[in-house]
């Protein structure tokens, strides 16, 4: 029997929400890693019971956790007694060792001066499509790491950070984070990443070389609004059946590309505000997309205190507001960039978490919503697994 498992990362721990395919009765399990910030958790498409989690603390730094039983139990990879008994010097306690390749160099700081690259945390974990032990990590300060041993050891794909434009990348308000990793299912050597505030980048050779793909983006806050890099891209989404079409929620503007990011055009049209963080695509309709408009970059909450998801069934431009079941007064939460996800049941389920600790679910592609939980810590990320 199929079911749904939602992996919720919050400011104070991780929660696992589960339901059968009816999506009506939910079991809430957690907090795991109580008191720690869980920026992101995601399951492997190869083995859904293999889940990776990024656990961080301002005091104690970065931890990587891994589950092999769907989130019931967890371990820090490479630190189990079995690993320590390895005959040939099995890695020990290196699962949180994110060391930049070579001399890290500098990037642009908030005040325009150059600032050294410093690792702070893992924002996003993207399990690869080929093996459950293969996983990518997007980190702050922006870089991409890869593990091929289930998270025991990490190696930087340094061609990205060492791109000629690196010294011109700058942190957004949340830090200089690599927060989006999309793997082309038809060509796994093609990977898209997004960085705040540098922009979007693409590799076609598995991460050795990278190309900025920001043509068509326009960012008023930059001295040159159409510069090659420096754009504050908040999120990119892709439908697996149509990997050359990308949708982007930028700092301001919702954008679309139909050529793998080589060029972008704006599709914000009738949105009440085109500032926001998440964007996602319907599981079965590659031209149906979702955003959550936020008032502005200075006021990170919904317009008029009304929490509204907007859906376009035309790949952008024609947007309809979705409000049924969502608070329509006095609501001043935010929905962060990694906090929206979809399931692949029919009809498609859509889920998002808020900084107020609610996780909302729609069983009907967004037509109506109800909260699964209302009072979690601030939600940082939501990932949904559809279990067979």
């Amino acid at each position, binding site marked *: 029997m199929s079911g749904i498992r939602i992996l919720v990362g919050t400011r104070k721990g991780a929660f696992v929400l589960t339901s059968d395919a009816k999506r009506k009765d939910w079991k809430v399990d957690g907090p795991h890693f*109580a008191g720690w910030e869980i920026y992101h958790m995601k399951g492997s498409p190869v083995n859904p019971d293999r889940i990776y989690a990024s656990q961080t603390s301002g005091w*104690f730094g970065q931890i990587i956790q891994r589950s092999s039983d769907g989130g019931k139990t967890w371990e820090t990879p490479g630190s189990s007694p079995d690993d320590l008994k390895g005959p040939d010097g099995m890695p020990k306690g290196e699962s949180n060792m994110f060391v930049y390749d070579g001399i890290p160099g500098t990037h642009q700081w908030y005040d325009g001066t150059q600032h050294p690259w410093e690792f702070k945390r893992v924002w996003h974990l993207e399990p690869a499509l080929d093996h459950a032990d293969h996983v990518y990590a997007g980190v702050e300060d922006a870089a991409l790491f890869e593990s091929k041993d289930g998270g025991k050891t990490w190696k930087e794909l340094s061609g990205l950070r060492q791109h000629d434009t690196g010294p011109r990348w700058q942190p957004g308000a949340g830090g200089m984070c690599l927060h989006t990793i999309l793997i082309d299912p038809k060509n796994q050597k093609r990977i898209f990443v997004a960085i705040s505030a540098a922009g979007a980048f693409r590799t076609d050779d598995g991460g050795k070389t990278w190309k900025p793909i920001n043509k068509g983006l326009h960012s008023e806050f930059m001295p040159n609004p159409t510069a090659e890099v420096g754009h504050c891209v908040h999120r990119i989404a892709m439908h697996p059946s149509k990997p050359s079409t990308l949708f982007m929620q930028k700092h301001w503007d919702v954008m679309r590309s139909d050529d793998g990011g080589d060029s972008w055009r704006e599709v914000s049209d009738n949105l009440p505000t085109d500032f926001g963080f998440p964007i996602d695509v319907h599981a079965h309709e590659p031209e149906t997309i979702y955003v959550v408009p936020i008032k502005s970059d200075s006021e990170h909450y919904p317009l008029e205190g009304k929490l509204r998801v907007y859906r376009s069934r035309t790949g952008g431009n024609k947007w309809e507001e979705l409000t049924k079941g969502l608070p329509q007064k006095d609501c001043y939460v935010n929905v962060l960039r990694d906090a929206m996800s979809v399931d692949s049941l029919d009809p498609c389920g859509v889920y998002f978490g808020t900084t107020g600790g609610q996780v909302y679910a729609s069983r009907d592609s967004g037509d109506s919503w109800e909260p699964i939980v209302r009072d979690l810590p601030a939600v940082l990320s939501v990932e949904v697994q559809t279990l067979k």
Partner: protein
Amino acid sequence: MIRVVLPHHLRTLAKVGDEVRVDLNRSATVKSLLDALEDKYPMLRGTIREHGTLKRRPLVRFFACGEDISHESADAPLPDAIVKGDEPFFIMGAIAGG
């Protein structure tokens, strides 16, 4: 046998109780103690000291016999009371934020 008291979040990470005990077969210093602690609990690597440089993380403090020794040399001998196990060595998270 040296007794070490870890902060709450590192206890849950290492899955240990209030106090852990570490055997040292060499001179007892902050460095040798932390080396031994991390050998016994590898998941603590990088959480007390930075990987590579082995510098104390900025929001971590060390206390021995009621004294803050965070800024002492990591190679300085630990007090006898710590070495004999009469007093625990405290690793604490600094007070920061609300």
